[in-house]
């Protein structure tokens, strides 16, 4: 039976061969995405993410589990990256340049353009913080990106003769895509991260009614119905405005790309509307490139941005300027976007240290911070931070947390399941308990099976692939000739010969099949012996059989042939003397495969004996 197998490989777990195991949420976690799918004999890896919470090898999935046998490049047919976030692509250069995968990698064009920026950003932090030597280099990032094949939305890409993939718009971040993976009639859809409601710069995810065998969906907000993003945006603007009005400085630690651009649009529009004069800076030196990509990939943004693009590009910021390190000491209010986003090194941390002492200032964390970062400390309410040389930094500035992540909530996930109409659903990238709730809801509402494997657990689905078979016109006509017009509501049995030629199946009449295949017909006959107690001669016994059958089988053509044998349709009955017992006659009943039913019936009839002659 053909099957589809799915194994989330996210977190490193027990038994890991290359590094100490982890006890993290076993598959149902939001750490990193990496899923292996086997479909129709093809092996595909979906995403290749890293975990920001670890700074050793545990940050990467343990690729030794992909296959014990042979090279990765031979085993995997392709790798697909859904979007540029590091928990989906962060391990890619490691996988392709250090582990040694040398096959094709697919992603959308914006993802291909933006991925290296984030990877570079993270590489620099890793090297900056710890001087990590065993980390991928810039050259490796470039070499990895050169292996990427960019795909367009809704374009069917043929990976090889059998495997094809197709990307659908996923919202979430610029360039994010859902992917349909198809081999023959079997298909899987992988959503990556997606958002079913449009936001300030991106549209909502959409997929057609592709009815895949399996839909693998993220379930980050499996139980949440999120409030309107507008409220959060209002709140954010209010806080920034209040701080700037009272002469304070606002620090917003961000990663180079993604949320930063969304917040930039938000502030830019607000500054314009309110005619504010306080400067806004972006500290990384990457703004230009980031904004360049947002401009370049305008078709990937939402309708509003696309519409207004002609008059004004939303990513041409008037109020947002490049930051110089000297500006941090300037008096007066200002807003600064600085990297990295978790206050764990570099410029954002330096500015934070400068500004933390004043209660007039504010730091807004627009995303979660992993443990082991200053961001994590202040978000958990710690206000006295130990610094270098036993110094203590007292955090007097206001600390705010505002979530701007763009994942589908429970409603959105249900909506997508409804759109795609899958046969099965598999939940990943969420927390076990919440996923359990959503699983039940999906099973109830859509009457489909829903799975939520832990990392390292394999879900196997049996599929019944539909194989198209063509029917020859001759066969259909013959069937029609027997009366009865075809009726969609009444299925009918049709006999024919199935032939496979040039990878196509066709049902034809047996004569046509023989002709096409150049074969001659052989007849297979079944013969059964029936013993009758009859002292008369063989010819008389045969005649008695004839008379008996003639009287019983009124609808059949029963004949007595000159050679003494009796036929009923294709069935032949001959009487012979018993070699040892002259009072017994042996009836040889033989029939073809087509008349199997009648042959069996006659045999049983004759076994009961002949009626006594009157």
């Amino acid at each position, binding site marked *: 039976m053909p099957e589809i197998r799915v*194994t989330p490989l996210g977190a490193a*777990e*027990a*038994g*890991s061969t290359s590094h100490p195991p*982890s*006890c*993290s*949420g*076993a*598959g149902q*976690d939001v*750490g990193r995405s990496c899923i292996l799918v086997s479909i129709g004999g093809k092996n595909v890896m979906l995403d290749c993410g890293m*975990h*920001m*919470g*670890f700074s050793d090898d545990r940050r990467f999935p343990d690729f030794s*589990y992909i296959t*014990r046998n*042979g090279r990765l*490049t*031979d085993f995997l047919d392709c790798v697909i990256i859904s979007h540029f976030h590091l*928990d989906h692509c962060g391990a890619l250069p490691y996988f392709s340049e250090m582990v040694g995968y040398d*096959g*094709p990698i697919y992603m959308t064009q914006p993802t291909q353009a933006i991925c290296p920026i984030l990877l*570079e950003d993270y590489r*620099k932090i890793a090297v*900056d*913080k710890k*001087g990590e030597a065993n980390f991928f280099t810039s050259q490796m990032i*470039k070499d990895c*990106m*050169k292996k990427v*094949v960019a795909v367009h939305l809704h374009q069917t890409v043929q990976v090889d*003769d059998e495997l094809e993939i197709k990307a659908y718009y996923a919202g979430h971040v610029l360039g994010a895509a859902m992917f349909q993976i198809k081999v023959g009639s079997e298909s899987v859809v992988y959503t990556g991260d997606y958002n079913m409601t449009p936001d300030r710069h991106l549209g909502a995810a959409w997929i057609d009614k592709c009815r895949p065998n399996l839909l693998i969906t993220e379930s980050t907000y499996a139980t949440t119905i999120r409030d309107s993003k507008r409220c959060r945006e209002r709140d954010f603007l209010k806080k920034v405005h209040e701080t700037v009005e009272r002469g304070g400085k606002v620090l917003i630690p961000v990663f180079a790309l993604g949320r930063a651009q969304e917040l930039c649009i938000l502030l830019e529009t607000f500054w314009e509307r309110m005619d504010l004069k306080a400067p806004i800076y972006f500290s990384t*030196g990457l703004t*230009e*490139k980031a904004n360049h990509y947002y401009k370049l990939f305008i078709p990937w943004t939402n309708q509003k941005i696309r519409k207004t693009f002609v008059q004004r590009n939303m990513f041409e910021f008037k109020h947002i300027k490049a930051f110089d*390190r000297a500006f941090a*000491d300037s008096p007066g209010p200002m807003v600064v976007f600085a990297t990295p986003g978790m206050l764990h*090194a*570099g410029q954002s941390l330096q500015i934070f240290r400068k500004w933390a002492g004043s209660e007039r200032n504010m730091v807004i964390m627009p*995303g*979660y911070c*992993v*443990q*082991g*970062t*200053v961001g*994590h*400390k202040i978000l*958990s*309410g*710690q206000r006295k931070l*130990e610094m270098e040389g036993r110094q203590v930094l007292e955090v007097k500035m206001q600390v705010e947390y505002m979530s*701007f*992540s763009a*994942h589908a909530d429970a409603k959105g996930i249900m909506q997508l399941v409804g759109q795609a109409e899958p046969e099965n659903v598999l939940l990943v990238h969420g927390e076990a308990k919440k996923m359990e709730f959503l699983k039940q809801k999906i099973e109830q509402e859509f009457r489909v099976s829903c799975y939520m494997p832990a990392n*390292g*657990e394999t879900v196997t689905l049996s599929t019944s692939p539909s194989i198209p078979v063509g029917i020859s016109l001759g066969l259909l006509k013959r069937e029609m000739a027997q009366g009865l017009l075809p009726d969609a509501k009444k299925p009918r049995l049709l006999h024919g010969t199935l032939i496979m030629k040039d990878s196509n199946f066709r049902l034809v009449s047996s004569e046509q099949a023989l002709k096409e295949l150049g074969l001659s017909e052989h007849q297979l006959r079944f013969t059964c012996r029936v013993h009758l107690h009859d002292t008369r001669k063989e010819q008389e016994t045969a005649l008695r059989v004839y008379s008996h059958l003639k009287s019983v089988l009124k609808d059949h053509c029963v004949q007595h042939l000159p050679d003494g044998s009796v036929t009923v349709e294709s069935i032949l009955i001959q009487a012979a003397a018993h070699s040892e017992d002259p009072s017994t006659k042996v009836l040889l009943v033989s029939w073809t495969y087509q008349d199997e039913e009648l042959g069996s019936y006659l045999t049983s009839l004759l076994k009961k004996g002949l009626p006594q002659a009157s």
Partner: protein
Amino acid sequence: MDPECSRLLPALCAVLVDPRQPVADDTCLEKLLDWFKTVTEAGPSLLLLQENPCLVELLFRVLKAHDPHPRVLSFSLRLAGLFAAQEDCFQYLQQGELLPMLFGEAGPLGGAAWTAPTVRSGWLQGLRSLAQHPSALLFLADCGAVDTIFSLQGDSSLFVASAAGQLLVHILALAMQSPAEGHPSPQGCDWPACAQKIVCHVEDSLHSTATPQVTQALNVLTTTFGHCHGPWTQGLWVRLSPLVACLLEKDPIPASHSLMDLLLSVARSPVGSSDCGLWETLAQTLSHLSPIQAGPLALGILKLQDCPQALKTQAFGVLLQPLACVLKAAAQSPGPPGFPEGATGDSMTVDTFLSSKSACVGLLCQALAHLELLQLLPQRPSPWPQAPLLRAAVAILRFCNGSAAPTSDVGGHLCAVLAGCVRVQRAALDFLGTLSQGTGPQELVTQVFAVLLEYLTSPDSSPTVQVLKKAFQATLRWLLGSPKAPSCCDLDPHTQLFLRELLPVLRKRLCSPCWEARDSGLEFLTQVTRHWGGQAAFRHALLASEVPELTRQLLRDPESYVRASAVTATGQLSSWGLYTTPTSPEHPEVQQESLFTELLHILSTDSEGFPRRAVMQVFTQWLKDGHADVAEDLEQFVARVLQVASRDLDWEVRAQGLELALVFLEQLLGHPGSRCPYAVALPEAAAPATLAQVLQALCRVQLFEFALRALFDCDRPVAQKSCDLLLFLRAKATPCGGPQEAGASPDVVSVEAALQRWQAGEQGQPLGELEPEAVMAVLRSMDLEGLRGTLAKSSDHIEKSPQSLLQDLLASVGVLGENEADCY
């Protein structure tokens, strides 16, 4: 344990067992275990438990909890295992019957929590840590753990199943090493009960008709022979090899991959060298398996240090079969001698080729990859059939690009299957590149270059840039490996001819709309120039082409990766005098700006880091090589570069600025030798008079201001480099006394004030003109060694400390859980 950590522990333990306060960050418990592992490895665990009774209490309370969180339960199991690794601590925990409650049937094993893979995983890992001493073995036997481990071998989680297998091997090894058992006989009749049990289980599994069970047993044995080398392994193999041999008789062979792994693992172990039957088994296996299955085994055999020649020949034959088939299929007429006997393109390989496209592609790719690996090994077969391999690689590439004209049926089939197949093209180009290490008859080498040129030229190579990139790489390897002309000072005529054909192709690729193609072209140019920049024929051909001019134009490419590669390439061309400054066509008398100015412009204005970093690398190389543009006015060169680099937002550019400054210093003061300024005496220190001049020069190029500012850079590597540089300078200057002490001159005061401002994170005004004396005085007064020590630590070492971890765990209870998803 740190007293502060000890103080925080009770509160943390209380939090961990409190179901109302879920631990937010899933990495925290993992880090906590890392820390406990360090602590238990550093000292007696018993003392740790006695001083921190909350830890044992935590374990008890987790056990008693109604519905403990799987993560916490798993954590507790692993923690208990860490403690019980030391025998006295194990006894201590046993007194309280804690271990049976955790690991025995009464524990999580029978509960609902067992359904969570993380708990099963924790249970296995706990036992793995615990199983370190004879008492542990008894405990495992008493609590029936081994049976549970057997069943976990077939767990639904790959991670759990794999851990179970590894734990069995660990227990087996522990049982066999146990001093209480003396030296067990190889026959196994007096083996410890625990070991007997495991071996019997393996035997049963090998008898099984279910392939997963056979696989599990084979994997356990593979790990055993891979990791354990005691004399008992010999006995184990004697006992089990007949069962393994039985598997080979089945059709199809069950778990063939695992079986191969086992045989190779045994062959690599001491057991292998003493068992002649093993070679026979390997030979038998090789002939039983299908071509695609046999490939990895053949490679494994060829990698073995000592194995019979006949087996090696057989294995090599297996690897060569697919290529032999290709050669046969491509042959127009009976050609030159092919592969060694035994590799003639057997019918099984031909059948695989014909069976399906994926089988054909898979087999070819595998064979090419294996032969590529083999070629690089010292123990590769000798004689190495270089010529037929070259012919085969060329034939495959020709099948792929449709330029082959096959006459046989198999050839026609290969043509159809391989046409445009990127996977095979990549593998064949890699292989062809590796073959450049050997030589071949000229006629063949000409064919190699011809096919490479076809690939470099073909428009089909563009959409699949990987093919083009690999074609460039293979070409480079062949070019650099090609022989010199007899006069030995120039390229041989064939290479010269090839170059003339290649450069127009390169030119075309540099104009490709695809950035990956332009980049690969530039990388190729850089490499060739690096090696052949001095070869007259190359110089002549290159200068006659438009390639240098195009490279210059690519300095303004829209793609930053390409700009960076163009910078490196022009830098390299310029180093060899191959980069002539063009004159303006309208005004030939007006020279356009020099390359130095142009690169400096890129360094000042390029919006992205890659090109700027590439410029810094070129400048540093120029300085090392004494490039003409640099030598013209060395000080001005350094001053201008440092001025721009110091303002750069990219810390890697600033760090490279310091690298350049160090090269400059070395040239002025002599090489730092070990780079450790205070490692040895410094007899070569410059004489005072010279030193004063050097310091003056350093002041003039404003190297001091650059380095001192960098000392307090927010990016640690920059500060670290600066610290090293200043230490080097101070060490060089100090032994000879250097310039007179400047005391607390106004200059010194102003430098120190500036340093304080910079340290506080303020940028402030530039220092302006500096007196060397003042700088040296400041340097002497600074605790550079202390700073170096601080910088050697990770910038987040405080946040990563155990104390910080405990504080974070306590502080984040109930605060962060909901936000975790917003990480990205």
